């Protein structure tokens, strides 16, 4: 079955139509190619590449990942190659493969988003941009500006006006009282879609040392334990905005993915569960190909 010829599971986000609504979340599949030995990433809606910053970032010291029975905590600290290396080394590798690519970016200041947008604008090989305004895992308080609606609206507008032909997604943090306000701000700024949610701030301690597991203390909680919270946030956002939503958080099965559509999402991203079950995204694609009615919003 050639998925490209089927249109009933395509998903439109702003100016872009993706093959299907199933994506790999940022930070999970590196710069896009890394899961290629195991799965045909061409058959996905797309991959969201690791969040990049203008300059390369070293990230946090190990340990960076910590398993708990209900998921994982991570403290990667946005290690990335930086925009320039991304443009020269990473982006070109996916270009001729027909892979849907969403470039995830993060910055601190409005001017930096201007620079990002202007450098990305002339390039090809990607269809969308995701503003990661929600990484809980780094030092600079400023990078957590995803909680401030005014700022969200401003930078969304900065990026959208410079990248009118790309799908612009704003990825928002669940670590906020009123997620709907942030989503509305993104919509007002011209976002084509909302990605919700990023990891939830959490911590675990070593019983012998009495220290947090991670050097930086807290980490980002992901995996099955955040599913009901992520569904809740998507449901709240769906009631607040009319642009498409990418549902993210705790998806470990086709059933979990379906629940995000019921909650009002138009697409989903798989994160932590891919580490365990690399075929999960492919299985979700097949399931929705066979049962496009599973992409309906609830109640039925």
């Amino acid at each position, binding site marked *: 079955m050639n998925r490209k010829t089927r249109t009933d599971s395509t998903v439109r986000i702003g100016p872009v139509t993706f093959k299907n609504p199933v994506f790999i979340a940022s930070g*999970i599949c590196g710069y896009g190619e890394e899961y290629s030995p195991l799965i045909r990433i061409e058959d996905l809606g797309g991959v969201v590449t690791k969040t990049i910053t203008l300059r390369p970032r070293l990230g946090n010291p190990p340990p960076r990942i910590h398993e708990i029975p209900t998921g994982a905590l991570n403290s990667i600290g946005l290690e990335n190659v930086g925009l320039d290396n991304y443009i020269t080394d990473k982006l070109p590798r996916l270009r001729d493969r027909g892979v849907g690519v969403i470039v995830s970016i993060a910055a601190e200041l409005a001017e930096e988003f201007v620079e990002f947008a202007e450098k990305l604008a002339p390039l090809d090989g990607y269809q969308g941009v995701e503003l990661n305004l929600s990484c809980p895992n780094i030092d600079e308080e400023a990078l957590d500006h995803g909680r401030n609606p005014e700022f969200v609206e401003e930078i969304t507008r900065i990026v959208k006006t410079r990248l009118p032909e790309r799908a612009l997604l704003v990825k928002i943090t669940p670590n906020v009282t009123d997620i709907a306000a942030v989503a509305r701000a993104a919509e007002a700024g011209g976002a084509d879609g909302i990605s919700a949610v990023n990891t939830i701030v959490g911590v675990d301690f070593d019983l012998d040392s009495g220290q947090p597991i991670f050097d930086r203390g807290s980490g980002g909680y992901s995996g099955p334990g955040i599913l009901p919270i992520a569904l809740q946030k998507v449901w709240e956002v769906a009631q607040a905005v009319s642009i498409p939503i990418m549902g993210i958080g705790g998806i470990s099965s086709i059933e979990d993915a379906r629940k995000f559509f019921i909650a009002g999402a138009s697409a989903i991203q798989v994160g932590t569960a*891919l*580490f365990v079950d690399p075929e999960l995204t492919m299985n979700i694609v097949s399931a929705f190909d066979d049962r496009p009615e599973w992409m309906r919003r609830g109640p039925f």
Partner: protein
Amino acid sequence: MECSRNSITSRPGHYRAAVVENRLLSRRYYLLVLSRPGAMQDPGPGTFIHVMVPAGDRFYLRRPFSVLDCDADTISLIIVEKGEGTRAMRALPVGAELDLIGPLGHSFPRVPGQRVLALGGGVGLAPLYYYGRRREVRDCESYRLLYGARTREDLFLERFDWDTEAVTFSSDDGSYGHAGTVVALAEREIERWGADVIFSCGPNPMLKAAAEFATRRGLPHYVSLENRMACALGACRSCVVPVRENGGIAYRTVCNDGPVFDADTLAWEGLPAA
């Protein structure tokens, strides 16, 4: 990277393998023999497989294990029971299926014409034992394996297929072989066998002692590291260790840049203690 010059690059696949044998070697160690998935690439010595924990209805990341041995039909692991994952694997009956990704990572390098002294501690035995059984070893001038464990029981002398000609043992408590650490044993054995290059694998404190030993002797040293992993494909940057680069620190992934590293490049002070 550090090691890729003389080592094969793994082409991992996702497979299901059946348990052929699951046998205790000592109280804490067991040998797990799996059917070798037909399509699986020949794993180099030092590469590993990433195993789905066969228990559970809770969340588990996969667990990485070095290849201990591999032939046309089987692939073997030596496992120390540590937490829930290795406990669940211990309970697998013959015939059960195990979901694995592999082979992964870079192997120990080929070192044609050189005398290798290989220092293994505990389950760190796996890649070094495997190297000794592989064609790579034919390139060496000599390959001498020193294996140390806490106590005689953990040397599983009677329960394991040792080529005792090529192995020397140590035990921390002196209950068998050399009394003391495997690095202390190396100080002695190097006089006997000579060495042009050191390989090592085991707990970090042992590796650090081995690195000091190699540096003192002015010998190149390849070390196989462990770290917590998520993807094992170089994608998530979970498993990094610090290396020295341009007067500063850079991070390399154990899963993909390693697990075998040139010991001289590592920023040892940044490695976890255990």
